[in-house]
């Protein structure tokens, strides 16, 4: 096996035994990125120099055996909405094309403390607005399993990068499926943690009440290793949770026998690709063999998840993106501006792409007088019902299993003409974010040669259990080990 193909666990073992250095691992990752990313286009920025310097420091740490963690010396990259001090952070938008943050997101500080090695920043749908990575202002990312298909979105660069072995792991960000959906399309394991489990400080906000940073990895074990480092209270984020962080790695070995697994019937209705449904049903049989108790349940408001999610997104995003005004950072277009309003109008017109424009206009529309009650307030009321659906379900079972997406990865360009059709590909992933619950997407098969993912959904702060179920499944299956040719 090549060095760039190693998982966190495998690389850590070699590093601990001094069979390889972080400098070697990092150089191998960078070399593979420079060779392979010409096909995939997963990276907006590759930070060679910084990576080699961080690798050198990690090797010192490994030599002295002080402060060594599972992530020490391991190369990784992050979605380009996570602020990295001194490294360009664009949100794949023209408005931030040359923006270099003067501070780190808390997750970046924590990964640096753990000794992980940043190799670059991943392409995404502009400001996270999209489900295919085609809304990047720079270029589209290609699915490593079929270059004519999308990697999913919005963390498409991160999923494609992990699938193609360009870095051992990634951090994505999930506002309404943006970690799980591309994880499913690319055969990657991806976790959207409980809202507040991971600090949002330094994350460029899309929807402040939905946004969750989480790991995208080769397997559930690696997911646990990354979550261990990034989870926990942060004084810089008042919404981060105080609850103690359990030992996720230790938790993986606990038994799953006897746990009750719910099948939400609304997630298996018309529109689901037969190959996807077959894979999920097969996985459910596996869970039964593993001793889990399977029961059908209902989440009656599922079909309203999509409008609830998007209406609240429009409203919060239009407010969050008000900060891009050409004054303090980013693009600023002042030529011919007679006053400050002209500068705002021109800067935002040139800086934002069409999907961002649509969504912030819709935000202003649903918040405006006469429409606020009918749309925004109505959505917040139905959001309460969505949350109650999950609460009721978790009285009958410990976790839910469902397809992550109704289909496998679609073709580039297939859905770009119709924004609403694109929104509908998120149908199974959006409901968890308004409810704030965690969900883990796990590879569980292939349909017509493309990967299928299932999501395990749990109640608030049940990441340890979701990872344990995912790990148990991956201990008896090998879907997660399958790699596209470009990863070699």
């Amino acid at each position, binding site marked *: 096996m090549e060095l760039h193909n190693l998982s966190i666990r495998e690389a850590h073992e070699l590093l601990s035994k001094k069979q390889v250095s972080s400098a070697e691992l990092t150089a191998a990752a960078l070399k593979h990125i420079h060779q392979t990313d010409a096909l995939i286009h997963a990276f907006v920025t590759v930070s060679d120099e910084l990576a080699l310097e961080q690798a050198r420091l990690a090797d010192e740490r490994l030599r002295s055996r002080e402060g060594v963690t599972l992530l020490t010396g391991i190369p990784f990259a992050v979605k380009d909405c996570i602020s990295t001090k001194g490294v360009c952070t664009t949100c794949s938008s023209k408005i931030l094309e040359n923006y270099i943050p003067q501070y780190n997101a808390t997750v970046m500080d924590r990964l640096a403390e753990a000794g992980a090695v940043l190799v670059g920043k991943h392409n995404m749908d502009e400001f996270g607005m999209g489900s295919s990575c085609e809304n990047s202002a720079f270029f589209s990312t290609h699915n490593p399993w079929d270059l004519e298909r999308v990697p999913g979105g919005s963390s498409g660069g991160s999923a494609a990068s992990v699938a193609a072995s360009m870095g051992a792991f990634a951090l994505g960000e999930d506002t309404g499926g943006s970690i799980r959906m591309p994880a499913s399309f690319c055969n990657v394991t991806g976790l959207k943690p409980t809202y507040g489990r991971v600090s949002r400080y330094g994350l460029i906000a899309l929807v402040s009440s939905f946004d969750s940073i989480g790991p995208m990895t080769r397997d559930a074990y690696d997911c646990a290793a990354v979550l261990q480092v990034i989870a926990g209270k942060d004084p810089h984020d008042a919404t981060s949770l105080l609850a103690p962080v359990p030992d996720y790695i230790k938790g993986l070995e606990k038994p799953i026998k006897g746990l009750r697994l719910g099948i939400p019937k609304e997630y298996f209705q018309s529109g689901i690709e037969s190959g996807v449904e077959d894979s999920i049903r097969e996985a459910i049989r596996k869970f039964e063999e593993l001793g889990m108790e399977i029961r059908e349940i209902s989440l009656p408001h599922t079909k309203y998840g999509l409008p609830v999610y998007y209406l609240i997104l429009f409203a919060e995003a239009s407010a969050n993106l008000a900060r891009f005004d050409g004054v303090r950072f980013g693009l600023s277009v002042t030529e011919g501006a007679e006053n400050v309003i002209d500068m705002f109008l021109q800067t935002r017109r040139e800086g934002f792409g069409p999907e961002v424009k*649509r969504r912030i206009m*819709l935000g202003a529309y649903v918040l405006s007088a006469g429409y606020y009650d009918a*749309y925004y307030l109505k959505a917040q009321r139905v959001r309460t019902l969505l949350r109650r659906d999950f609460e009721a379900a978790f009285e009958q079972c410990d976790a839910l299993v469902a397809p992550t997406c109704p289909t496998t990865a679609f073709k580039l360009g297939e859905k770009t003409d119709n924004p609403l059709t694109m929104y509908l590909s998120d149908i199974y992933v959006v409901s968890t974010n308004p409810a704030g619950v965690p969900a883990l997407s796990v590879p569980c098969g292939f349909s017509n040669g493309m990967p299928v993912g299932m999501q395990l959904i749990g109640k608030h702060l049940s990441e340890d259990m979701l990872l344990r179920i995912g790990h148990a499944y991956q201990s008896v299956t090998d879907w997660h080990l399958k790699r596209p040719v470009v990863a070699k």
Partner: protein
Amino acid sequence: MPKNHASQTTIIDINKVKYVAHLVRLGITEEEAAVFSPQLAAIIDYFNLLNEVETGDTPPASETSTIRSVMRADDVQPSMPRQDFLKNVPHQDGEFVQVPQVFDEE
């Protein structure tokens, strides 16, 4: 376009598009407004699906987690040094941020 539960009723005409664009301080041409108008209407129209749900006196959700009223000591903390902040400011004189005229002459 997905089949709608109700008839296509929402109209967001070009003037409305220009109005909301101005509310979010987004410069827009007549041609762009004409493209956005049916797109925005179709999206809002689909989301009228929510009218099916009887919400009665269900309270609107106002937060995602169970956290309420997080308090901390009101201590003075160091903030980002001015020179670091100014590194990203597009128009400045080395000390202050510069913008075009904000107030009318009168």
